[in-house]
């Protein structure tokens, strides 16, 4: 697909959509939009080689889970185009970033804006925690730490089949607390799996700042010691991202650590530190203040929501 916007504009559009959605619904995954918008915008708008979507712009309702009795079942991966050998694949490992991922699909013209209005509505496939059948998703990643392993298996298999397409994973830094992440890196190193990952290192997790929940130390050195090629960048700097992606990582996984701010472009969110995982407004007053402040930051009018 042809790029219609700059990646900067896509990132801004993602934040505007997540902001509007969160104000209207009295809460949402706002800080994830602050930290990750550049990464997802860059993946979809520049880095990934994807075919045209194979699923309708307005998502179909939930059509059942995989079962022998559900022969027409399909995942939401069709929003990323067909699973053809030449195209790239992407897994969103932290499935609670779904709101940001859906906003990205809209910004790059892969889903209609109506899709976001179905978010977390009963009977919808646009689920709050991205499911296999949700737009842009190919597997369930709601249980954190399994995304990299799945991508590694697919990447190994695609190389064996001689497919030129690459396998990317978008990860979150909380996943480094899971042992499976390290199992996956060592397996990739052992088997020379050239999977590519970009990790939103925003230092936050559900309970608060990661340093207060479980200190993880120098993860760049840890990844390197486990056998990965690891690059650390400013996750809001698109040119750094572009440079990191071309790093040679022959027979190794590439892990790009994107150091980000969970308040980037929305400084008022810092009031809610250290509980940023899901921002639900505590009062109408707070909701109104955030509405005015963030709207100004993002260069839009405040959202006219139902009180």
């Amino acid at each position, binding site marked *: 697909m042809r790029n219609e916007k700059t990646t900067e504009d896509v990132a801004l559009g993602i934040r505007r959509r997540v902001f509007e959605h969160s104000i209207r619904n009295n809460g949402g995954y706002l800080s994830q939009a602050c930290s990750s918008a550049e990464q997802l915008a860059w993946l979809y708008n520049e880095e990934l080689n994807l075919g045209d979507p194979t699923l309708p712009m307005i998502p179909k309702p939930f059509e059942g*889970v*995989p*079962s*022998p009795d559900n022969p027409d079942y399909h*995942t939401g991966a069709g929003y990323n185009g067909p699973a053809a050998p030449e195209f790239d694949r992407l897994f969103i490992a932290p499935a609670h970033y779904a709101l940001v991922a859906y906003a990205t699909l809209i910004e790059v013209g892969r889903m209609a804006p109506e899709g976001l209005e179905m978010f977390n509505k009963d009977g919808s496939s646009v689920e709050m925690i991205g499911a*296999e059948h949700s737009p842009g998703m*190919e*597997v*369930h*990643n*709601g*249980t954190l*730490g*399994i995304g990299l*392993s*799945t*991508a*590694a*298996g*697919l*990447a*190994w*298999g*695609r190389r*064996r*089949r001689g497919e030129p397409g690459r396998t990317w994973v978008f990860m979150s830094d909380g996943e480094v607390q899971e*042992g*499976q992440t390290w*199992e*996956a890196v*060592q*397996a990739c190193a*052992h*088997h020379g799996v050239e999977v590519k990952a970009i990790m939103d290192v925003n230092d936050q997790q559900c309970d608060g700042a990661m340093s207060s929940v479980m200190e993880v130390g120098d993860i760049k050195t840890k990844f390197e010691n486990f056998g990965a090629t690891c690059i650390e960048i400013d996750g809001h700097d698109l040119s750094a991202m572009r440079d990191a992606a071309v790093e040679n990582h022959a027979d190794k996984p590439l892990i790009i650590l994107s150091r980000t701010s969970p308040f980037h472009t929305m400084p008022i969110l810092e009031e809610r530190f250290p509980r940023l995982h899901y921002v639900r407004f505590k009062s109408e007053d707070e909701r109104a203040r955030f509405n005015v402040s963030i709207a100004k930051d993002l260069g839009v009018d405040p959202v006219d929501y139902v009180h």
Partner: protein
Amino acid sequence: MVEMVNRPYASAFEKFAAGNPDILCMSADLTSSCEIDGFRDRHPDQFLSLGMAEQNMMSFAGGLGLAGFRPFIHTFGVFMYRRPYDQLMASVAYPRRKVRLMGFLPGVTTPGGMTHQSIEDISVMRSIPNMTILETGDATEVESICEAADSIDGPVWCRVLRGTVPRLFDTPIKVGEMRELSTGDDILVVTAGICTEEALRARSALAKAGLSIRHLHLHTIKPFDHNALLDHIGSVKSGVITLENHVTEGGIGSLVAETMADAGVGKRLIRLGLKDTYAHGGSRGYLMRYYGLDALALVRGIEDLVGAQFGISESDLDAARVDDIHSLAKAEAL
């Protein structure tokens, strides 16, 4: 005398998988213990060592499934569902990946104790949507388990016997069916896995006691042909008894109980197996005696079912097979 087959899985897997590029052999550091060391050495391109890291292995296999491969995962059964249960659910079972889970050392077939004995795996697997469950009870079933498992459009859990395995049957596993080993009309005996051999040991003594036994062996536990079982239950006068190398909750005893309750069958059912207990480490013969999983336990259960004593003792049962714990047919004494 029953024929004993040495390492039937080793040759069966190699014969089945070698040269098929879509089939991959995965191992988690128990390669010789699962009898795939020869395959690894002769077919390295189809072999993937994932190390002692079962969580990654399960999701990695899911990714391989996504790429169109049919991975056969080999390790001890316990290590394939207890630690990586979340990954088994999310990466394999939910998306119906064609991953074949070859679980070795079912139940008390190992002196490895609690950490090595998969005593509740059938219960767990029966409650997982999309999962198929197969269990081997003899060398012929071990020899046919790969083909049977690979015929399934989805994930398959297999309880696989290793080492020296008796040959009881001369036809391969036919998925979805059950074996009728005798067609009497007093009592229905339902067994699976190594307990079928135990029931066969009791057969002549029970016949001498004048009992007409109908005996079913289950190699396919899920999906299950409830109607076929109900027909057999309807053919016996006294009741039903199950014997399994597994806890009695959630295994084939429960399967039979649920079938009877759903159909409103008013016959008695006795379920033999591990009775809400862990086992400990010991030889298979000792453990089967200690926990009441052997031929004598079945005889006592049948006596309870019919309310009579037959005076059958150990010496009246066909000779027990005594495995050498330190057999050359096994990679270790486990």
